[in-house]
């Protein structure tokens, strides 16, 4: 696990980590000049989704199987507000985030009462209810979804019809959000979340009302997943049932596991890998789900901690013991 006092005592390692972060940001800034921005933006949206999910699974130890509801729900709210009410992009996104947070309160309230697989099943059941609501509700446009969401002007003057403007907007939101997640994880509150993940009964016996902590983490994760969904609706200019379907909940689990649970950058790599594979396969005629399933199996068998998790573990093993 990449978060012990051990690391804070090792300044060289901290310096290497910061250098890598800066390098990563520089790569992301340069990327749209060589890689198709639309593809990059999709990667960033899913990467944010996976990071939000990882806040819950990796740092609180809660496996939600209903995160599509927050991602897709926010996409619908945002798309509808922007298209039908003429909301600005930022206002639409804000509305999506709020909607996802409210959904998170409702789903979380019922789910945190149960543990393990029951927790996952309740989140799945409630997300499915939301899925059927989205099929029935008139504002979602049923099978067609909400199409043709205008890009509009960010803060009234940045024209998001320009791909690069849109890209840097998405990148900024992504970086700020990842920073927020990093801050939550490495905060006094995050420490309590980790203790709950590590040993829930012990956390209770130390006087922590774990239900409140779990609910808070759940709502934060849902809101950030919503941010990813709303952002994606702005990028691709539509919101459809795909975003709220259970397969989307499965996909974010896959991304997080592939990259490495409980690591800061693992889910980002996992998302990039899955989105790239899907893009490649979409044009190749291979059945996407089967290939993804196979990749998943291989990774689970070869790198149990995920790709980034294994790399970190490799360096941890080489680190001399005190």
């Amino acid at each position: 696990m990449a978060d012990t006092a051990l690391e804070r005592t090792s300044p060289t390692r901290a310096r290497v980590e910061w250098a890598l972060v800066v390098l990563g940001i520089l790569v992301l800034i340069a990327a749209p000049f060589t890689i198709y921005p639309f593809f990059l933006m999709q990667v960033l949206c899913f990467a944010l989704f996976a990071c939000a999910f990882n806040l819950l699974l990796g740092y609180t130890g809660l496996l939600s199987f209903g995160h599509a509801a927050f991602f897709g729900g926010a996409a619908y709210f945002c798309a509808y507000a922007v298209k039908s009410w003429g909301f600005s992009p930022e206002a639409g996104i804000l509305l999506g985030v709020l909607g996802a947070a409210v959904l998170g309160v409702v789903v979380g309230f019922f789910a945190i009462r149960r543990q393990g697989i029951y927790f996952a099943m309740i989140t799945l059941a409630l997300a499915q209810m939301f899925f059927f609501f989205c099929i029935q509700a008139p504002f979602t446009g049923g099978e067609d979804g909400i199409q043709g969401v205008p890009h509009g002007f960010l803060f009234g003057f940045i024209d998001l019809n320009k791909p690069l403007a849109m890209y840097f907007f998405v990148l900024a939101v992504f970086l700020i959000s990842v920073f927020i997640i990093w801050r939550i994880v490495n905060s006094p509150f995050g420490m309590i979340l980790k203790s709950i993940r590590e040993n829930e009964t012990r956390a209770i016996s130390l006087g922590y009302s774990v239900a409140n902590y779990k609910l808070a983490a759940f709502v934060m994760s849902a809101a950030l997943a919503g941010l990813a969904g709303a952002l994606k609706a702005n990028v691709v200019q539509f919101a459809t049932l795909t975003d709220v379907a259970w397969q989307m909940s499965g996909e974010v689990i896959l991304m997080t596991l592939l990259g490495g649970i409980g690591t800061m950058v693992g889910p980002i790599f996992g998302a990039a890998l899955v989105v790239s594979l899907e893009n490649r396969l979409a044009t190749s005629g291979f059945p996407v789900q089967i290939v993804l399933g196979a990749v998943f199996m291989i990774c689970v068998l070869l790198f149990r901690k995920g790709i980034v998790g294994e790399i970190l573990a490799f360096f941890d093993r080489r680190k001399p013991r005190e």
Partner: protein
Amino acid sequence: MTPASAASEQSDSNGSRVVLSARGLRRDFAGFVAVRNVDLDVGHGKIHALIGPNGAGKTTVFNLLTRFLPSTSGTITLLDQDITRTPPAKVARLGLVRSFQISAIFPHLSVLDNVRVALQRQNGLGVQFWRSLSALDDLTPRAQELLERVGLANARHHMAGDLSYGRKRVLEIATTLALEPKVLLLDEPMAGMGHEDVAVVAEIIRGVAENCAILMVEHNLTVVADLCDWITVLQRGEILAAGDYATVSSDERVKTAYMGTADD
């Protein structure tokens, strides 16, 4: 606080103030009665032992007292406050803190962080999700003190999960003490420890008991004889005998039911 509550009348050997008391405690598990009719009084500054053969219901009594399990019937009073329906985290906040039979630590946190997590709440550092971890630096001296007390100061940057079994147990004691409990429940704190560690932990417990009440489950009768002021013997969920060591160890029923097999 009313110094002379009903429970205080039946205080233990030396008549110290009763801080934790239970009356008629009972717990059923699907038709099986694990704990029946248990009355207990734990006095301030006293060490009270709960002994009994395996499966007697000692851990279940701990779970009932700390509200980790709801009792089927009976009442629990902590510092003159009825806690029979209080949620377990609240019970801990009121000062009744427990350790676990299976050592309960946070394996992927450092030894230091294990103790600091316990210190966070009383220092108002539970909910700050916007502050950096350096906010916890203020807790380090106190955590360090506690680790020194149990002899773990050198291991503070180790991952807790990497400690040996005995050291995990003393780490658990250090985190428990961090809460400055008024009543401490220790479930076999010395189980699986070597001789020296047993002596160290016995000394820690004796020191803590000076301004705290302790109820402990312990199989090692030498330790019990040496450390405890009062002993309650549990068998098949019921109290078989209670009294000081001399009284209990000379009790015929206890001899046949428990001591007879425990001497070897």
